[in-house]
């Protein structure tokens, strides 16, 4: 379990929990930390969060399963979130999603065989002025044309490999 976060990270989180008057408020911070280090939050991750926070696993699990940006299943090195809300829809998000499925040879919800990308739809990213938009890892891409996707994926792949 300790391998999910370093001893130092766990100690830091535990110290913050001790200092804050309402430790439960930190549940997303702890889950984010575990996810940042491991890509996703496993059952062991939920248990670790519960220990750090002094909660039961169930109390953490009902939070972890609620939020769509906490991944409770393994994901690729980078998660591609394609906005499918109204502004992006009106400017071609369906074509973006279809092209990505072709390029990656996966359906939404799946991960590429090489473990590089997971493809997910997402609701509005707050980038309506740059629609259609998508997010890969932490990078937001706006005004995306289907023809640009291959180059975008190459760039994202190269970033991981370098």
């Amino acid at each position: 379990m300790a391998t999910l976060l370093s001893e130092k990270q766990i100690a830091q989180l535990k110290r913050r929990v001790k200092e804050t008057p309402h430790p439960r408020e930190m549940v997303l911070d702890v889950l984010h930390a575990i996810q940042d280090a491991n890509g996703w939050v496993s059952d062991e991750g939920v248990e670790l969060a519960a220990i750090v926070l002094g909660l039961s696993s169930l109390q953490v699990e009902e939070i972890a399963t609620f939020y769509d940006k906490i991944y409770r299943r393994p994901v690729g090195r980078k998660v591609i979130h394609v906005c499918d809300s109204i502004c992006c829809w009106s400017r071609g998000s369906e074509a973006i999603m279809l092209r990505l499925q072709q390029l990656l040879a996966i359906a939404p919800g799946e991960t590429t065989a090489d473990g590089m990308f997971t493809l997910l739809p997402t609701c509005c990213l707050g980038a309506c002025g740059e629609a259609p938009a998508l997010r890969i890892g932490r990078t937001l891409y706006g005004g995306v044309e289907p023809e640009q996707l291959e180059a975008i994926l190459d760039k994202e792949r190269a970033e991981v490999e370098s």
Partner: protein
Amino acid sequence: MRSCEPLLFKNRRAEGPVFLEGYRKNGGYQGLEKALRGMSPADVREEVKASGLRGRGGAGFPTGVKWSFFPSDDAGEKYLVCNGDEMEPGTFKDRQLLLADPHHLLEGIIISCYALGIGTAYIFLRDAYRECAGNLERAIDEAAQAGLLGDDILGSGFSCEIHVHRSAGRYICGEETALLNSLEGLRPNPRSKPPFPAIKGLFGRPTALNNIETLANIPHIVTGGAAWYKSLALTEQGAGTKLYGLAGHLETPCCVEAPIGMPLGELIRDFGGGVWKNRSFKACLPGGASTPYLTAEHLDVALDYEPLEQVGTRLGTGGVVVFDDRTCMVAATLNLLRFFARESCGWCTPCRDGLPLVCWLLERLERGEGTREDLTMLQEQLSHINGRSFCALALGAMGPVDGLLRHFAEEVEDHIRMGRCPLQD
């Protein structure tokens, strides 16, 4: 072209965000100084009430009136929570403000805390806005270093701290009581009201909840005065300026600050560059995904709370989403309802089960498989869902359905009559 001297966007620059030095150079924190040195908390509350400022997060409730329910003078722990969940499709104004000028929000929060006798504020920020969170954290450090935040602010004896809370997705977190649960680390289902958050909110204590844009207006009301602020609007009853989002089928989608009461058509033409590809205007959502559509006959309507209510819709978040003449309004409504159905928290039956039923009916209609009975059933859902759900999510979700059936009944009928979508070749 009519525009206005920007208030909230006065420091917005192409080269990136403005921090403390730039903010102060352009009049920043003068409102805070004026409030702390020359006004009592009650004076500030009165000024905000007199300004006519209404909540910019969607519901449009008068801010001063909302604050008047808050036990400002009671002792004990009280909180201010800034709602920065901004997840209503078509809404991206708060992000623009935080990307440009994070201190603007901080000053608004500090003055509001002073007015309401609050010592601790939380900024609840959606997961997608990591960059905004970074800007805010840097601004909070700067403000604390400069004595504008923390203990004994500017030697006034007033103390205040601000925390940034990063969320992890889900639209329901923008509902104020769900947001409180989320912030406390509980599952973010809405709470029943009463008790209202002003009486029993975060951690069971009195809590004031306001949107980012609402709070960012406060320094200007304090600096310029209520009468001046009110006079900025183009309508008699309106007040102030608004951050409008312009998205959808426009030549130049953007986020602009313009007076409250700006005519819809003028905003679309002058700032949105008109409908894209030389096509014509068919409809728009005037204020985000939950506001009933307007049509070409409404292009003269003033973008203000009352005038929009008179034509059966709402100003909402001010996120205008335009549809061109090739758009199928059944398909657009289906897209919107899929969003709401997916984002339902599942707590109450009308929302959890009703919205998927509405999606199913719209899918049938869009595929050309819909019948008169389906249409009747769709109409019935307006009364079956509205007013019967636990929170306002489902009510908002039915806004586009209401607009579809009121303004595009013929187009819906055509789907049934022709057995296909009339807008698809």
